């Protein structure tokens, strides 16, 4: 903890974020590349001191959004503000943000310490050498690379290079730290470790972190808020829990976590939900998503059911309070340690993914080919817009 002496105390950070002024703000920002609209009239605010993620498939505009904050791109319309200050016409080298690049972009002709100290050497008025050395050493310790300053960058492992890139960006004490798919090049185990470390680091230094990723697990596990993007627009902006429990439409439900989707037409609506009739005539009830739009009769809709809310029983043993009970055949079984995933073929519903916890005795006994009964309650299924 001693090494984080230069960061502000947590209490102060908390007090500051309590007033929660926006650290990064987009006001109707549009960015075009030729005929392609990479960012299409988006507005949002990221509160100070939070961990925010842009999540979406490639080409959705998430990287462009990050580059607009960094100053590598200028918006065609609208404006970006950082720390309450408009960044119109402010070049990247005058912005109080620093970035961790996707493939680190470490300077190959400098050793680790010179890489980390690069930002400090650009400061005007000049910092004296002792001050630079001290802060470089502190920051290397912060990312747990003490005494590595003299190493050449290409001698380091991927994870170590990642930490150097992180230290190089943090050493300037930016208002906002930008991370462009920083963990994509690491193997799975290392990625998990770095996710936890990034979170701890963010809490310690109290800087706003903005992450771009296509990995929903990464976004869910680290972020305070997430913006799900598609075609240059933000489809939904909210906490991981909100996105998981109350997706606005099928796109979000599909991108965040896993769901079974049953498509059909809305045939009846009421305050809490709707009835959606599948193409085979089967009508299913589901409730509205707390954040989603209410559909009207005749519109296309989907029922989204998370694999963990579907119950699985031996034939004839399903509880009576279910809104839907059907028999099906187990087609596939994937053992995943703490839980087991079954794919169950139900004649009227197709293939459904069901997830049983390790504690369920059926998780171990049920085998492919067995018949079983599935079911769920209508208040656990969501009626969503189909797009």
């Amino acid at each position: 903890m001693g090494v984080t002496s230069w960061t502000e105390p947590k209490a102060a950070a908390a007090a500051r974020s309590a007033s929660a002024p926006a650290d990064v703000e987009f006001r109707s920002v549009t960015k075009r590349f030729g005929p392609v609209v990479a960012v299409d009239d988006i507005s949002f605010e990221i509160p100070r001191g939070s961990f925010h993620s842009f999540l979406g498939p490639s080409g959705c505009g998430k990287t462009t959004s990050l580059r607009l904050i960094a100053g590598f791109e200028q918006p065609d319309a609208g404006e970006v503000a950082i720390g309450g200050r408009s960044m119109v016409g402010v070049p990247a080298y005058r912005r109080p943000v620093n970035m961790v690049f996707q493939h680190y972009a470490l300077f190959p002709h400098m050793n680790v310490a010179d890489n980390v100290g690069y930002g400090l050497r650009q400061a005007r008025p000049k910092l004296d050498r002792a001050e630079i050395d001290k802060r470089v050493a502190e920051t290397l310790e912060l990312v747990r690379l003490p005494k590595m300053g003299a190493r050449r960058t290409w001698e380091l492992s991927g994870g170590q290079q990642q930490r150097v890139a992180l230290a190089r960006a943090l050493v300037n004490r930016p208002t906002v730290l930008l991370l462009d798919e920083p963990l994509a090049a690491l193997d799975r185990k290392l990625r998990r470790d770095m996710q936890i470390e990034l979170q701890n680091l963010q809490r310690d230094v109290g800087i706003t972190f903005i992450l771009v990723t296509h990995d929903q697990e990464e976004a869910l596990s680290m972020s305070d808020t997430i913006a799900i993007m598609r075609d240059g627009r933000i489809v939904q902006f909210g906490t991981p829990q909100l996105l998981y429990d109350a997706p606005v439409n099928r796109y979000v439900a599909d991108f965040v976590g896993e769901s079974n989707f049953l498509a059909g037409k809305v045939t009846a609506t009421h305050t809490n939900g709707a009835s959606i009739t599948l193409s085979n005539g089967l009508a299913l009830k589901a409730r509205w998503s707390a954040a989603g739009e209410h559909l009207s009769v005749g519109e296309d809709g989907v029922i989204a059911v998370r694999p963990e809310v579907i119950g699985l029983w031996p034939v004839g043993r399903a509880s009576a309070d279910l809104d839907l009970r059907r028999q099906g055949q187990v087609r596939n079984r994937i053992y995943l340690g703490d839980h087991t995933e079954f794919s169950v073929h139900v004649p009227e519903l197709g293939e459904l993914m069901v997830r049983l916890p390790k504690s369920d005795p059926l998780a171990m006994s049920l085998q492919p080919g067995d018949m079983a009964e599935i079911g769920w309650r209508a208040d656990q299924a969501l009626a969503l817009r189909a797009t």
Partner: protein
Amino acid sequence: MTATAQTIATPAVTERRQSGRWLTALLLAPSAVWFFVLLILPLAVVLVYSVGVRAPAGGYQAAFTLDNYLNLPARWAAFKNTLTLAPLGTLICLLAGYPLAYFLAVKSSARWRVMLLILVIVPFWTSFLIRTYAWIFILGGRGIPALLDAMGMGDVRLINTPFSVMCGIVYAYLPLMVFPIYVSLEKLDKRLLEASEDLGAGPFATFRQITLPLSAPGIITGCMLVFILLMGEYLIPQMLGGGKVFFIGNALVDLFLQSLNWPYGSAVAMALVIIMLVTVSLYLRATAATGGRRDASLI
């Protein structure tokens, strides 16, 4: 470890290794012969000649004397011209070539780049001799001086001056400087420039701290190519210097073919070789000290 090493060294493997060595020798033999016959041997001959004396009718007569070397200051003008104009020419090529290479590699669009690169090469499609003759016309009495005269700028003489020789040098050697620098700038990762800018360095600071050091291998290669070739230059001073601005190369031709003083010519040639060895190794040592990571592609 030792156990595995022993098991690997079976007779079959040893045999394969030996045949590999034979293949290496076979592939290297032609160039080894080439270098020996056309470089080492002639150099030895020149060394031997340089301590001899001129035969009465011209040529070489066996002897051992250092008089030829002690006599070198008599050709001071040739050494002075070469040792000022060759580095200066290299410097001008660098100053003119770097921006051009930078523009080609960084600023020009992919569509234009190939076109522009071809334009840099196009002059090579014409004979070097013809191109240098063209300079005689441009700088000669009926060229630019005539134009300046007509504009009332008075009587200016350009041909047969250090200026005309320098024009020819820069014109001829610029592409040799542009290409190595272009290559090193072209493979420069543009994200490094963004990273530098992101860390607070403006365009000039980024150029000084990132672009320039990372293109150093290209600069070193380009300077070496131009400088080494310039030190031995003969044709350009011959044609554009008109006997008034001459290099060591011109002095050699004069000594060997006019005065038929082969031993003295050999001593001048040896002096040139030694000067090149010293300057080039000093230069390489100086750049190696500042360059950091050594790129295998550089001389």
